[in-house]
């Protein structure tokens, strides 16, 4: 049970406080309700580039990192398709430094031309390092384009192509900042060796006077129900054939999300999972295999992907996957198999909750989903899933006409 307090400033900033006096540190975590799904399709990768620009100086403070490091703190940030999160950890005595820094960049950035110029280059190198200069680096670019026709999950957080990042202007930056980076679109979590009253005082002092801004009303096109199987083939100079198949699944808060999360584990979690045992160990069609999903807030994708053992052809591998899918659709999974993945989930949650930084991040995430207390009811939701639920949802999700298959051929 994670205990926390919650209050809202007059400008709409939601503040959550989680005290844990077993650590000497304080964590200050700010989540903004903006991700790459909120981008203009012609300027993808912007939310992530913007995250870099948040470190390029704010209106009163030329450098974000330096004063924080001087206070003994460390920080980082990440952007996903759904959200952008900034977090820092600092000795609790110096917590106010984080309030000062975070509030100043919420008030206004410095909008430095130099920072924009340099960070565009840095992000392009990040793009190259992870998505171009690696075998199979483009797999998920291609899969997202295949699986989504109109929803902005069609592109990756890093962006569709380098040129999108390159053509971003300072006007875009200013507009994006005003639209998304205001108190009413943000959640502040303060955790660790902190006291509620002090956090209230500091939040009011540093964030209270920032203009509220306008609540961002997200109106994304929802992806129409897929009615026909899609397939695409890629030829590359990667050394092994690879197979990826995805199916659309429920949004984060729906029951189907929890059911399919467990089904993912049954199929592909660990070396006792069905796909690993059958296709890597027994049939030896794949040299490695994964079944996973992205935990997306909107309707996401469940994926099975793996590299083929040399000499096996993609059709054979694909059929073998289909057989496993048919099996989980036609026969109920064992109670003990379901119990296993529930036990694993319980354990994952317990380990995740060990670190105060991870707890702060989860609180912000659940608050963004609508209610921070969801963090405390999550395990219960997994416990209510039955073997019949698994079968019913697998039948619904793993339909061929809901599937997207990518054959990645080596030369």
């Amino acid at each position, binding site marked *: 049970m994670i205990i926390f307090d919650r209050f809202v400033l007059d400008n709409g900033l939601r503040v959550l406080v989680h005290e844990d006096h077993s*650590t000497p*540190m304080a964590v200050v975590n700010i989540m903004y309700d903006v991700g790459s799904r909120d981008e203009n399709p012609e300027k993808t990768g912007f939310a992530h580039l913007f995250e870099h620009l948040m470190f390029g100086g704010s*209106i*009163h403070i030329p450098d974000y*990192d*330096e*004063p924080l*490091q*001087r*206070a*003994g703190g*460390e920080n980082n940030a990440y952007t996903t398709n759904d959200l952008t999160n900034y977090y820092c*950890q*600092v*000795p609790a*005595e*110096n917590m*106010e430094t984080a309030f*000062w820094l975070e*509030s*100043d960049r919420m*008030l206004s950035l410095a909008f430095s031309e130099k920072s924009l110029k*340099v960070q565009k*280059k*840095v*992000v*392009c*190198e990040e793009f*190259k*390092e992870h998505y*171009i*200069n*690696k*075998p*199979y680096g483009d797999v998920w670019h291609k899969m997202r384009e295949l699986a989504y026709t109109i929803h902005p999950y069609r592109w990756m957080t890093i962006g569709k192509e380098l040129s999108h990042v390159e053509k971003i202007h300072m006007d875009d930056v200013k507009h994006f900042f005003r639209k998304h980076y205001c108190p009413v679109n943000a959640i502040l979590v303060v955790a660790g060796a902190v006291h509620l009253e002090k956090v209230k005082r500091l939040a009011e002092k*540093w964030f209270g*006077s920032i203009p509220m801004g306008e609540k961002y009303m997200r109106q994304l096109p929802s992806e129409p129900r897929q009615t026909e199987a899609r397939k695409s083939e890629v030829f590359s100079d*990667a*050394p*092994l054939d690879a197979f990826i198949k995805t199916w659309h699944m429920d949004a984060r808060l729906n029951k189907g999300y929890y059911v399919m999360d467990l089904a993912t584990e049954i199929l592909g979690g*660990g*070396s*006792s999972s069905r796909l690993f045992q059958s296709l890597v*160990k027994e049939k*030896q069609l794949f*040299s490695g295999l994964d079944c996973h999903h992205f935990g997306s807030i909107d309707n996401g994708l469940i994926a099975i992907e793996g*590299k083929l*053992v040399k000499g096996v052809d993609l059709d054979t591998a694909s059929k073998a996957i289909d057989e496993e899918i048919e099996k989980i659709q036609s026969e109920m999974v064992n109670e*003990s198999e379901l*119990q*296993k993945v529930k*036990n*694993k989930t*319980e*354990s*994952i949650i*317990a*380990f995740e909750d*060990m*670190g105060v930084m991870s707890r702060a991040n989860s609180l912000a995430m659940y608050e963004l989903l609508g209610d921070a207390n969801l963090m405390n009811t999550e395990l219960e939701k997994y416990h209510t899933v039955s073997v019949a639920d698994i079968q019913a949802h697998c039948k619904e999700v793993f339909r061929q006409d809901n599937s997207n298959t990518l054959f990645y051929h080596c030369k």
Partner: protein
Amino acid sequence: MINRLIAPETIDAVHMKLQLKPYEHFTLDNGVPVYSIDAGAQDVLMLEWVFYAGNWYEEKNIVAATTNFMLKNGTTQKTAFAISEHFEFHGAYLNRSCYNETAVITLHCLNKHLSLLLPIVAEMMTDCIFPEEELAIYKQNQKQRLEVNLKKCDFIANRLIDEYIFGFHHPYGRYTSTVDYDQLQREDLVAFYQKYYTKGKCLVFVAGKPPADLAKQLNHSFGHLPLNQFGLPDIQFKPEPSEVKKYNIVNDAAGVQGAIRIARPIFNRHHPDFAKVQVLNNIYGGFFGSRLMSNIREDKGYTYGIHSYLQNHLNDSAWLISTEAGRDVCEATIEEVYKEMLILQNEPIEDGELDLVRNYMIGSLLGDLDGPFQIIGRWKTYILNYLTEAYFYNSIQTVQTVTSEELQDLAKKYLKPEEFTELLVV
């Protein structure tokens, strides 16, 4: 109105009191030492069995890593599947990793399942059978994985730079080829297993919220095993750094980035300059605010990241600069790396920068000591390196007191471009 131009008052982290929580220590009936940290809020545990079974002790390439990997792949009583199923059913994670001197088995679990899991871990230390079928699958999949990795310039660069610094004969400089997998025999694994696991030298580290009967439970499963009865063979390797100081390798003619590694041999933690060099390294390339990062990423945008670090070896070590940079700016990046060395040699570090790094290092250490797994991790490093807690407090004192002059002298001594080996893989 508040004045946002003025930073809030801070307490210098450098003066904060840091304490390394002491461990509980006891010995099993067979002499296996156990080190334990009780510092958790959650009812979870991490247990680590450290064996001296790294590639330092193998006579044939990749035997140590393969033996370690296959500990989970079958015993006289259980198939690979049954072993995985047992741990996973109880929500536990059983991992194994092989390093240079040591190889470990790590268990993460909820306390309530511990007694059901320990006997199986013990079985993995005494009853592994290394089935031919499992070995064949492993070889096939590892060879294919290697083939994918060999397409990556960073992977190639990491292998080669170690070879250039230590020599291929040395466990730190050696790497694997397809032929090594082909030549692996089941008998190699069995022999290595018996010598270095079943009758090997073992230490146990525990962290989390250990149950009151931890010693009893461990003794029950492990206290009677023939561990720690025989001494380790005395095997020594001498590094043979390459005479050539500059390498250019083309791995992918169409690649858009190059992997840069620039390295020199350096001493280990027992050298009197080690702690001071750590401070110098932080200033040079050890954190986000370092000079390499500020110049090469934040000013020039040549790379997503550039880091320098001292390798974490028990014996001889290396000081390394590592980055992936745009193909057209690799040469310019390398030039800046050397330029920053010379600046550290020629100009004293200003107080402001040095104070910042001191505070950052102490603050970061304070954060690192947060939680039982982190605390035991630090103790494990010390114990395996034959260091005591004095090392912890002396290192802190060094961070607090090392002077700008001392750091400049160290830069003159160790940051000499001509003593570094440079590698660019595109």
